[in-house]
């Protein structure tokens, strides 16, 4: 310990301490500002929606206009079905394209794909719906869950692609070299080492894409179309929560308004549940790489 006249407990100047508090406060308020709208939306949904929530709402299909009661069970099931189709299409294609861009895409082809993905990301969702209408609905001759899933899946692709690419690029080159040095082939390294190292980031990308399309209404208007009855066939018109909420919200009936609020609440709860389930599964190592 150097022995100088002014030694003793280290004194931090008032200005520095003040600045420290000010910056901490600023950062904390920024966090609050981010959380506030989310909290407010959720609280308001609970406030308006919880009144119409009951067992019937979760288990019954809509009653005819004017008859009280009924529920959105078919729409909940329809949403799940459409989102499954969308994920089955969007997740593998998105991750695959992301792998290509990160590991093989440092060329002209890669630039084209990157640009295409970014443009696709910016295409209005209603336009995506029109494309799905042209590609699937017209070909089949009628509306279907498949067409809805196709539209939503298409919207998931660019988000997942870019997120996967960025997460893979964050994996240090040294990790790939370690694998090459063991005589592990390049494709195997990509799947079992690089992708596995980036798993949690890739999952975040998948969740963002999923959560984004889960609430989409416009692309479903003339693809899934909606349905007042149960439907489990992917080739038939299908109800979806977002569609049902839309239809009920613009109706003139108070009963339907209340149900629309409840439907919106259920939609958010569903998204939160599936996103958390994916997180937990990933945390437990259920989704680690391939092989």
């Amino acid at each position, binding site marked *: 310990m150097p022995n100088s006249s002014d030694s003793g407990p280290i004194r931090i100047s008032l200005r520095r301490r003040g600045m420290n508090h000010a910056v901490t406060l600023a950062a904390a308020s920024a966090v609050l500002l981010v959380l506030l709208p989310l909290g407010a939306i959720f609280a308001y949904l609970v406030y308006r929606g919880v009144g119409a929530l009951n067992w019937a709402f979760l288990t019954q299909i809509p009653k005819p206009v004017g008859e009280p009661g009924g529920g959105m069970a078919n729409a909940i099931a329809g949403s799940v079905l459409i989102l499954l189709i969308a994920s089955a299409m969007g997740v593998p294609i998105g991750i695959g394209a992301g792998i290509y861009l990160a590991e093989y895409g*440092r060329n002209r082809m890669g630039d084209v794909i990157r640009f295409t993905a970014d443009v696709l990301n910016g295409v209005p969702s209603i336009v995506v719906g029109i494309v799905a209408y042209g590609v699937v609905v017209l070909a089949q001759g009628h509306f279907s869950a498949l067409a809805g899933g196709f539209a939503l899946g298409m919207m998931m692709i660019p988000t997942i692609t870019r997120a996967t690419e960025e997460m893979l690029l964050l994996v*240090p080159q*040294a*990790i*790939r*070299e*370690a*694998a*090459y*040095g*063991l*005589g*592990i*082939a390049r494709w*195997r*390294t990509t799947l*079992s*080492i690089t992708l*596995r*190292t980036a*798993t949690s980031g890739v999952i975040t990308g998948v969740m963002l894409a999923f959560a984004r399309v889960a609430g989409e209404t416009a692309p479903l208007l003339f693809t899934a179309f909606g349905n007042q009855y149960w439907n489990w066939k992917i080739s038939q018109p299908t109800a979806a929560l977002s569609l049902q909420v839309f239809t009920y919200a613009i109706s003139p009936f108070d009963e339907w308004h209340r149900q629309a609020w409840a439907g919106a609440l259920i939609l958010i709860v569903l998204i939160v549940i599936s996103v958390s389930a994916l997180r937990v599964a990933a945390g437990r190592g259920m989704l*680690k790489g391939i*092989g």
Partner: protein
Amino acid sequence: MGVGIKVEHLDAWFGKVQALHDISMDIPANHATAIIGPSGCGKSTFVRCLNRMHETIPDARAAGKVRIGDLDIYNGTAAVQVRRRIGMVFQKPNPFPTMSIYDNVAAGLKLNGFHDRKRLAEIVEHSLKLSALWDEVKDSLKKKSGASLSGGQQQRLCIARALAVEPEVLLMDEPCSALDPISTGKIEELIFQLKENFTIVIVTHNMQQASRVAEFTGFFLLGKLIEFDRTEKIFTTPSDKRTEDYITGRFG
């Protein structure tokens, strides 16, 4: 058992820049050979040519003849086959961060399609014992991640990982430059023991280290092999003026 390495007229490029010029040397089996020289002289490039890691860098290529035992590595052998027989340890420890200690060591075998679990467990234990890490990690093999170890332990883990695929040659690219003196000592001791079973080529910036661990030393300068001889000879009576200047600290 280790095998000798015969290098004939090896050239290497990064794009249009030639990094190695006409290197020829005979690296003897079951000995440690040190590669020394100032930064940027091509030491790392040279060892990376020995297991065809050089070509994983975009635009990089190599030409010439390298024989490792009976394997002509640039002629008729797939790169992955070459790398299974020639292990590599890198400058910075690079364990697979999401894998346990056990999986790190087993990775080379598992991902090459080896699935005999009992045999795998034996190989993992054997490799960790060879790299003198077993006693420190045997209680947490599958619980702890490879990244949770200290730097020196991580480097020994990487050595175990390289040994697990049972190579004949071990290339070490400045394996101690990111480690503290105690860990460095442990790795050097390890090199001494490993020589019995493997041929070792070690790139080092540290001339004391070269003289401690290696029987043979090659001195590189500006992409050329200036001198290659027994280590005592290089450090006491080098035949080239440039070698003498380097080891007496006149440059580099």
